[in-house]
């Protein structure tokens, strides 16, 4: 019966109670399964940005080492995240204006990632505050990558469960594994551990953000919404 109803365009007509139930069921199902075109673009954007910054940080360490300059100058590459955030904000506003449908889940996911951003800023303030006041930099800075990856994994896990999209779950697993690997890198490589951490971060951002984002965009394209 459901198929019969939607074979033709919906007209403004009276109909039976059974048909009424069929309409409700069909429409709720359609609304539930919609994925916006370009839904994965933010994942790709942030995945590329962070992976690029991490790899540039490694490259800068080698360049500064060759020039006999202090290696901690290389961390300044992370200021690139400020314009990246402005770019993301503008992209989000444009997407918001042009989106033809906004689901309840879209709103919850936005809130989760907003909370992620706030948590990261507060975490960095705590790390920098403590390291400067205690004059102890290395140990505190070595915690940045594994803890940010841990917070990212939480955000990605919630997103995976809300979207029921398996690649996000793989991404969360990659982040959790990466977080442990970052801690292990410090134990195994000591002074060079941070460099290894950045390499792990870049790999995890590609596995955890770029690949799922690309797959989500492909799925959205196929659903034609």
């Amino acid at each position, binding site marked *: 019966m459901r198929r019969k109803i939607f074979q033709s365009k919906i*007209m403004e007509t*009276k*109909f039976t109670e059974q048909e009424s139930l069929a309409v409700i069921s069909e429409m709720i199902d359609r*609304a539930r399964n919609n994925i916006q075109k370009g839904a994965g673009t933010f994942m790709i954007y942030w995945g590329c940005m962070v992976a690029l910054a991490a790899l540039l940080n490694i490259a800068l360490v080698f360049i500064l080492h060759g020039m006999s300059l202090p290696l901690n100058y290389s961390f300044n590459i992370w200021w690139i995240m400020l314009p990246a955030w402005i770019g993301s904000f503008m992209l989000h506003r444009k997407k918001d204006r042009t989106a033809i449908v906004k689901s309840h889940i879209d709103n919850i996911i936005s809130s989760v990632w907003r909370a992620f951003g706030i948590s990261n800023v507060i975490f960095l303030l705590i790390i920098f505050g403590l390291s400067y006041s205690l004059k102890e930099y290395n140990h505190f800075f070595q915690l940045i990558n594994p803890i940010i990856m841990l917070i990212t994994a939480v955000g990605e896990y919630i997103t995976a469960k809300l979207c029921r999209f398996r690649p996000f779950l793989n991404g969360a697993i990659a982040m959790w594994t990466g977080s442990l690997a970052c801690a292990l890198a410090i134990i195994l490589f000591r002074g060079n551990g941070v460099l290894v951490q950045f390499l792990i971060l870049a790999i995890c951002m590609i596995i955890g953000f770029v690949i799922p984002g690309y797959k989500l965009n492909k799925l959205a394209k196929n659903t034609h*919404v």
Partner: protein
Amino acid sequence: MFKDLDPLLHSQLRLAVMSLLLGVEEADFVYLKAQTGATSGNLSVQIDKLNEAGYIQVTKTFQGKMPRTVCKITAKGVNAFDNYVKNLKTYIK
């Protein structure tokens, strides 16, 4: 005992629009048209009826030079839909 079904909701297109809006935060006219397969004129008339009844909230804006209509279900609309489904159950049983 059979209960009267809300005549405003007991029509295919209006019920389809309400069911779609129930599942999302808000939806553009273009989305509603694509999902229901209705004509622009017919959909526009039905949206106006739902808006007048206070079941949905319609916001008209401009995206560049193009007009844009965004619909959102209201609390009154959710209650009406809930009652409609409850009454519908008495017919199905």
